[in-house]
């Protein structure tokens, strides 16, 4: 489902990623670990073509993201749902409208939008906030809205960048359970985090980045 081959990326002299190679199969749940600045966000951005590697090849859902035509990028992003580290919600749109956005840009009918958005909001448990603005929500609730927006499309891959960054342990485990549920329905899930608590809870395959390099893999047993 996801494959990186000798991927490197530099930001003005600083190495963000260095010779990273790995593969993630369909239906896997993978944690991308590493301290702040290790290159996790850079890697996730590359998977949706928002950033190009300096070297190496990246394949997502059978598409070579490194050579993809710009006009094809939107269609890739419709297959890959992303929860951004900085949320990226539209402040002047209601929760419902924010979650509806990925469907809207694809021209889905309003009846289908209503149905799918309601489903997604119910899945993440913020159905009752549907008419509020993001600013009126707690951080945990905003995080859930982001997840709802990422899954509303029924993506084949879900990428989440630090989805528990601002949450207390109780909320963290709720979110983790949510991801497990989404994964159980067949969606490949990649979660980037530096939070060891998440690692303990997920108890799945872990890829560790350190200063842009991939460390040898380990399997955590809970």
């Amino acid at each position, binding site marked *: 489902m996801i494959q990186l081959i000798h991927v490197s990326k530099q930001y003005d002299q600083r190495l963000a990623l260095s010779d990273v190679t790995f593969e993630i199969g369909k239906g896997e749940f993978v944690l991308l670990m590493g301290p702040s600045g290790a290159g996790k966000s850079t890697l996730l951005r590359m998977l*949706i*073509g*928002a*950033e190009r590697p300096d070297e190496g090849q990246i394949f997502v859902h059978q598409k070579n993201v490194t050579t993809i035509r*710009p*006009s094809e*990028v*939107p*269609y*890739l*992003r*419709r297959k890959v749902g*992303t929860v*951004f580290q900085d949320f*990226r*919600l*539209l402040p002047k749109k209601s929760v419902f409208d924010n979650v509806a*956005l*990925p469907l809207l*840009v*694809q021209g889905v009918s309003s009846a289908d939008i209503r149905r799918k958005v309601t489903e997604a909001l119910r899945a993440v448990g913020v159905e009752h906030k549907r008419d509020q603005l993001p600013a009126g929500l707690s951080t945990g609730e905003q995080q859930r809205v982001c997840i709802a*927006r990422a899954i509303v*499309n029924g993506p084949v891959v879900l990428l989440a960048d630090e989805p528990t960054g601002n949450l207390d342990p109780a909320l963290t485990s709720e979110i983790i359970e949510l991801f497990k549920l989404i994964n159980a329905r067949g969606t490949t899930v990649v979660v980037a985090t530096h939070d060891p608590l998440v690692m303990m809870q997920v108890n799945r395959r872990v890829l560790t980045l350190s200063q842009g390099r991939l460390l040898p893999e380990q399997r955590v047993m809970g």
Partner: protein
Amino acid sequence: MRTNRTTTMVAILTTAFTLACVGVFLLLYVNLRTAAGWLQDDVKIMVYLDDRLAPDSVVEVEQRLRGDRAVASLLFFSKEQALGEFKAQFPSESHLLEGLGQNPLPASFVVALSPSFRSPDAIKRWAERVRQDSGVSKVDYNQDWIDALATVIRSIELVAIGIGVILSAAAVTIIANTIRLTLFARRDEIAILRLIGATTSFIRVPYLLEGAVLGALGSALSLAMLKFMYELFRQQMRTMGRFAGLDNLIAFFPPSVCLALVAVGMGLGVAGSFVSMRRFGEAKA
């Protein structure tokens, strides 16, 4: 939101003033052309006949002219009529001709050409051709005058095109700047739309529409301003005795041209928003 509305108003007004400047020249050009057309419609071509021509041959020439596609109407002017005309116009000089004993004035056909042959070039070509015909001694029309008029019209045409191009570019720039402000204000929203899979055209269409609306409104407003100035000008002419009556001869753009101008404004607006989107670089991921 309020500042945005102000910017929009300013953009529409500036666009309108810019296009109105083009419009003034266009209006001048259209009216001059119409006037030139009337004058040209009145052009009569004299086809003088060979003095030794037998009556049969005169009929032959007439038949030939009547069969000519370019000829709208034809009037025969006999030697006697020519003499009568001369005497009527120059009574004091008529003794000059009498002294010659016989009538020296040739018979002629006065030809009016059909509308599609009335351009200066067409008149010239036709005259040149008929001059070669047998039985024709001379073809005459007011060539200098027609050529001069053609030159004037052509130079106004050039000036109008030049000014039109420059000021249209200015209008495009004005609209481009306005759209760029909107793009800048919405850059976060645009980035989000891109990240969740919106295509470039999905993102661009609203701004292209905005540009189209700005351009169309600017153009419509410029027409309104022009119409106002035009009415004022006519009013002024009417009150000045010397030009009274002339005010009915100048015309405003017909509705079809007005519509076309609004469409042109719309096109300029679309071009403006296209330019700003290119420069803004929202096409990047």
